[in-house]
């Protein structure tokens, strides 16, 4: 089956409600299928940094040359998430997820916001268009409050 056919098949299977959800999240159908099939949990870069660092420390204890033990993908990912983590401290990372999850966001939206830390309401909507779509309870004020909460965590980290 070619890629295109597969995509169309996906669209049919997903049905109305979901393809709508897909459109407003601004992600492809591909993502939605991945999301439903594998029951994947999205991770923010800062969370991945904690997980990978923990694993790397464990390796350090059991071997002399841990960098030799890990794959190139691991090494590159660790470098990447360290560079692009907005929060370093484990408590702050936990707080970010806790605070964002009060705003009825989809997993994916939560992680994009946590990763990119938009500073203005306009920027947040450009990054995650779905937070401002019909039927969602987010007005500008609520979004502003959410961004404020986020920057507070950063300040007190």
């Amino acid at each position, binding site marked *: 089956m070619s890629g295109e056919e597969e995509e169309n098949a996906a669209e049919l299977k997903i049905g109305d409600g979901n393809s709508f959800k897909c459109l407003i999240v*601004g*992600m*492809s159908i*591909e*993502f939605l299928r*991945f999301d439903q099939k*594998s*029951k*994947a*949990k*999205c*991770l*923010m*870069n800062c*969370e*991945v940094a904690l*997980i*990978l660092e923990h*694993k790397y420390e464990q390796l350090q204890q059991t071997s002399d040359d841990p960098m030799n033990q*890990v*794959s*190139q*993908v*691991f090494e590159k*990912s660790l470098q*990447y*998430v360290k*560079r*692009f983590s907005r929060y370093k401290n484990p408590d702050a990372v936990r707080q970010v997820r806790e605070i964002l999850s009060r705003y009825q966001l989809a997993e*994916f939206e939560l*992680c*994009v916001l946590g*990763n*990119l830390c*938009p500073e203005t309401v*306009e*920027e947040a909507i*450009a*990054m995650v268009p779905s937070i401002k779509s019909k039927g969602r309870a987010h007005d500008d004020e609520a979004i502003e409050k959410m961004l404020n909460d986020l920057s507070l965590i950063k300040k007190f980290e």
Partner: protein
Amino acid sequence: MFFHIVLERNMQLHPRHFGRSLRENIVSKLMKDVEGTCSGRHGFVVAITGIENIGKGLIRDGTGFVTFPVKYQCVVFRPFKGEILEAVVTMVNKLIPDDMEFQSGDMPNYTTSDGSVKIQKDSEVRLKIIGTRVDATEIFCIGTIKDDFLGVINDPAAA
């Protein structure tokens, strides 16, 4: 984006690995086999974070090898069309955007006509993925910086 997911794999083990450390042997073989690989469906497997369960082994006819179904949790990275993420520039080539000019030399870069923005190696950019191509062992993406709030986020030359 990174995801935490549960995957399944059948592990084939030689009888010499059986015995008291069977479980450890399965897990270390799993890590060696799976970490660092890439599949179009799940993306890059970055790290295994836990074993959910190891099922009953099945002896294979004629060889003595035993197959164990293993369920494991792992961190994967999978890019999607439409996703916005931040990235590091590793190479600058000559695919010129309309409003920028390519400057060759030992540090090739893009500069806007007024010189205010420069993109070169090691710059950090925020981009939106507009296309992905999935290969058996790799995923290629095309991204754009031509939209609101996209583009350079830090400039190594200015820092």
